[in-house]
């Protein structure tokens, strides 16, 4: 394919369609968690408009759900600041996800990149990393997946808000673990050889320690940064 010979990344319609197709395995999870957010938002007293607005403009499941803990009827400057900071801590992992994709996105028109990057989720980040590790250059894969996920995510709020959650006990079917399961599976194609062993080990050890000591989501950033730093600082071994 000439896609792989292209010197710069690009965004094509074919790439966007491919991204949408690669998103299919994530759809059941998106529907269930999008509707679960709708249910939780209804219980917290948000209107349906407010719930859908949250999904449409924040577009980050974990942050939206956690933010409901700080939701209130009357807002002060302090309470808005608090919920904004909470959202930033939950989403801090996205800083690293964006950093890891940057060399792959370099050269894309800023008028596409800066608004489009708001469509990046755990799911299409991993789809893009996988596609990229196979040599793919078409950034449409990231954005096309994001568009499809956005539509599903916003619409899924409605049944959840109206009718309660779609699946009574998501835990029973392991649906609370969809993202970790996919992350675990993706470790296989992302593995590049023995040089990954020490950084990944450090990432895991630091994440486990952090999660035992610090409440919240700091473990992801702490572990991931430690792994990347380790890889950067390790001496390069010569081959042969």
């Amino acid at each position, binding site marked *: 394919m000439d896609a792989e010979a292209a010197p710069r990344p690009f965004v094509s319609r074919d790439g966007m369609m491919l991204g949408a197709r690669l998103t299919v*395995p994530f759809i059941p999870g998106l529907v269930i968690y999008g509707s679960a957010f709708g249910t939780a938002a209804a219980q917290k007293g948000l*209107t349906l*408009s*407010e719930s859908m*607005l949250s999904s449409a403009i*924040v577009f980050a499941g974990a*942050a939206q759900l956690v*933010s409901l803990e700080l939701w209130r009827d009357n807002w002060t400057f302090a309470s*808005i600041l608090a*919920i*904004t*900071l909470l*959202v*930033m801590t939950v*989403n801090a*992992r*996205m*800083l*690293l996800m*964006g*950093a890891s994709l*940057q*060399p792959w*996105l370099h050269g894309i028109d800023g008028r596409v990149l800066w608004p489009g*990057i*708001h469509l990046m989720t755990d799911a299409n980040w991993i789809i893009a990393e996988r596609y990229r590790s196979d040599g793919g250059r078409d950034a449409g894969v990231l954005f096309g997946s994001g568009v499809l996920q956005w539509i599903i995510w916003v619409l899924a709020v409605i049944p959840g808000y109206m009718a309660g959650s779609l699946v009574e006990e998501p835990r*029973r*079917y*392991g649906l609370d*673990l*969809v993202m*970790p*399961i*996919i*992350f*675990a*599976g*993706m*470790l296989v194609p*992302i593995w*590049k050889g023995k*040089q990954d062993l020490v*950084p*990944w080990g450090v*990432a895991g050890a*630091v*994440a*486990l320690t952090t*999660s035992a000591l610090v409440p919240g989501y700091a*473990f*992801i*950033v702490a*572990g*991931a*940064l*430690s*792994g*990347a730093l380790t*890889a*950067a600082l390790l001496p390069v071994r010569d081959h042969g």
Partner: protein
Amino acid sequence: MADLLGPVAPDAALALICMAFATWLCRAGGVWLMTHVPITPRVRRGLSALPGSIMIATVLPIAVKSGPAAIAALVAAILAMLKWRKEVIALGAGLLTVSLLRAAGL
């Protein structure tokens, strides 16, 4: 339909806009930062270890907190991926494993 949707309170809208902007900063910030960092060989090695490190750092603590059924599900997903290289199969293997083990009371 308007009754169903309900109003958006102005202060709630402001809170949501701040949350959205904070999220966009996280999404765009990492990309922006790396466009301003020269990609030396060292930085390249760090970046190339980053995706796997993010995945491990996300998965391990969640697995440990969620218990043996979750750990078994992640192992099943890795094994399925090693064999078939298809994420749908890996996801199916993981979900099947965790539902069976949870049904068995683990």
